[in-house]
């Protein structure tokens, strides 16, 4: 009683020490594995280094990497690919997962069945799924083309076509994430008080009107959250592209993190790779800021 505020100074200080000790492991860890590496990465992006010669002998190049990268047509293509993938994800995932959330929100039987069906993809290994996708869309033997053939639709080149290869990779991302964002939207939907809809019905508002004036506005924070997370994740995509196309055909699905991995660990150009990472990091920050701003001005 009363020891929390004006208590004896010695006791208070011992408790403060306990507090510091509880958070110390995480703080120390973050200095070693987050703060330190962040600073190192920034410094590295201004140097040339192959990680074989001693770190003290890195060559200073200033902003050379940045200038070179931003002028390089290949890197620009890679940036465009990354944006295309992100855009594709943003176009398909939110509406579809919101739709699924609506369906799940209705009092349907067999909730466990729908949850399992829509959610197992989320917990499934992306590497395994990427391998399956590669075979699903196999031009000659894959079931997708087989289905198209059965429906007398033209067979598609899928992974050998630049546009379609990107669509294949996006489809994996969409398929795998629907359940996850559906749950998030579901939580958002269930946070909307039922009285609002009842009042809306009494006023004669129809289905669609209720959706537009009650549901959507109240889902705004949830939607913003979903969009931001999709964007951040999509900009850093690696596994599906590494496994399914490895950047092909001819660099048309190559994305920043994949190229960065290649440049760093196959060509040992740590400085360039770090500069790539910094550019992407900046893009992630800017995208997130823009999305938060847009959400604010809408209000």
């Amino acid at each position, binding site marked *: 009683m009363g020891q929390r505020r004006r208590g004896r100074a010695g006791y208070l200080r011992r408790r403060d020490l*306990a507090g510091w000790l509880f*958070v110390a492991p995480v703080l120390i860890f973050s200095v070693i594995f987050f703060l330190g590496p962040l600073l190192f*990465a920034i410094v590295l992006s201004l140097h040339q280094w192959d990680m074989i010669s001693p770190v003290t002998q890195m060559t200073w190049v200033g902003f050379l990497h940045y200038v070179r990268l931003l002028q390089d047509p290949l890197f620009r293509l890679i940036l465009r690919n990354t944006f295309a993938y992100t855009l594709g994800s943003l176009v398909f995932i939110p509406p579809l997962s919101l739709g699924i959330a609506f*369906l799940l929100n209705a009092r349907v039987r067999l909730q466990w069945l729908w949850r399992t069906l829509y959610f197992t993809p989320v917990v499934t290994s992306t590497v*395994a799924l990427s391998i399956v996708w590669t075979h699903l869309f196999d031009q000659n033997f894959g079931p997708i083309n087989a289905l198209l053939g059965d429906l007398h639709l033209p067979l598609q080149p899928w992974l050998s076509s630049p546009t379609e290869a990107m669509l294949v990779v996006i489809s994996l991302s969409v398929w795998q994430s629907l359940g996850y964002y559906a749950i998030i939207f579901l939580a958002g939907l269930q946070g909307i008080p039922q009285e609002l809809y009842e009042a809306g019905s009494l006023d004669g508002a129809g*289905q669609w009107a209720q959706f537009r004036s009650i549901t959507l506005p109240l889902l705004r924070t949830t939607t913003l959250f979903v969009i931001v997370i999709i964007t951040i994740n999509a900009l850093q995509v690696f596994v599906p592209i590494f496994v399914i196309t490895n950047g092909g055909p001819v660099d048309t699905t190559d994305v920043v993190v994949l190229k960065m991995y290649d440049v760093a660990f196959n060509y040992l150009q740590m400085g360039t790779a770090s500069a790539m990472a910094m550019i992407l990091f900046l893009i992630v920050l800017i995208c997130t800021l823009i999305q938060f701003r847009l959400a604010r001005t809408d209000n």
Partner: protein
Amino acid sequence: MNPSLARAGSPGRRPTNVRRVLRRAAIYTLLIVGAVPMAFPFYYVIASSLMTPDELIQIPITWWPHHPQWQTYANVWTVIPFARMFVNSLFVTLAITLGILLTSSLAGFGFAKYHFKGRDVAFLALLSSMMVPFFVLLIPIYYIIKELGWLDTYQGLIVPNIVTAFGVFLLRQFILTIPDELIDAARIDGARELRIYWSIILPLIRPALSALGIFAFIYQWENFLWPLLILQNPSMFTVPIGLNSLRSYADTQQNANLLMAGSVLAIVPSVIVFLLLQRQFVRGISLGGLKG
């Protein structure tokens, strides 16, 4: 409660039976229609894993093997040291999960229930530094691990992953809701700080711990990029890396059955964990999702 059950048109009238039935039919239809593409890849990977090489390259396509080749599953274990990889994955994933639970709960407790000077600054700094995406840090962290001689080791796989911003944030939120009186009462009874953490805090945040644990497990099980960077020795491979290496053994459509069987085996553990702990998992997402 469902907004889409409310009726369009005349105010205050309950939906007629016909409308209600149609609505439910529509909902179920959509759910089923949507479920088909969701289930299709799973069906395909299982079916292909049981086909013969001839069936795999057959045109028109074989939709289900005539004689399921169960021995393919046995073969996978011999083509690559898959059993070893499972052990590696299990050990590493469990170690990381425990580490995350421990570090997140300790830090969450410290940030929630202690009021030392600089606490809020430290919390903010911590959170911002941990929000930096991994790809930015991967070269420096690789270098650190390399200099420590931890390439191709368990500690190299485990240590860089044992702290997450999400975990600290989530558990701090949870611990904030624990009444201070409980803690004060324990202190009056003479309990030391660590004992308060262990006997009072931990049991009270069990739901959050299990949700966080499940998340961590499933995420770390399929972690690919980091093991890809630091592992060269096949006997240290984790399952995702092993599966990736299987691709070079089964690089044509004809021996895709091996690859598919490997994929099924890789998928099974996460699915089991999810099915057993569905409720906590879903709850964990809503918690994390809304807190942002």
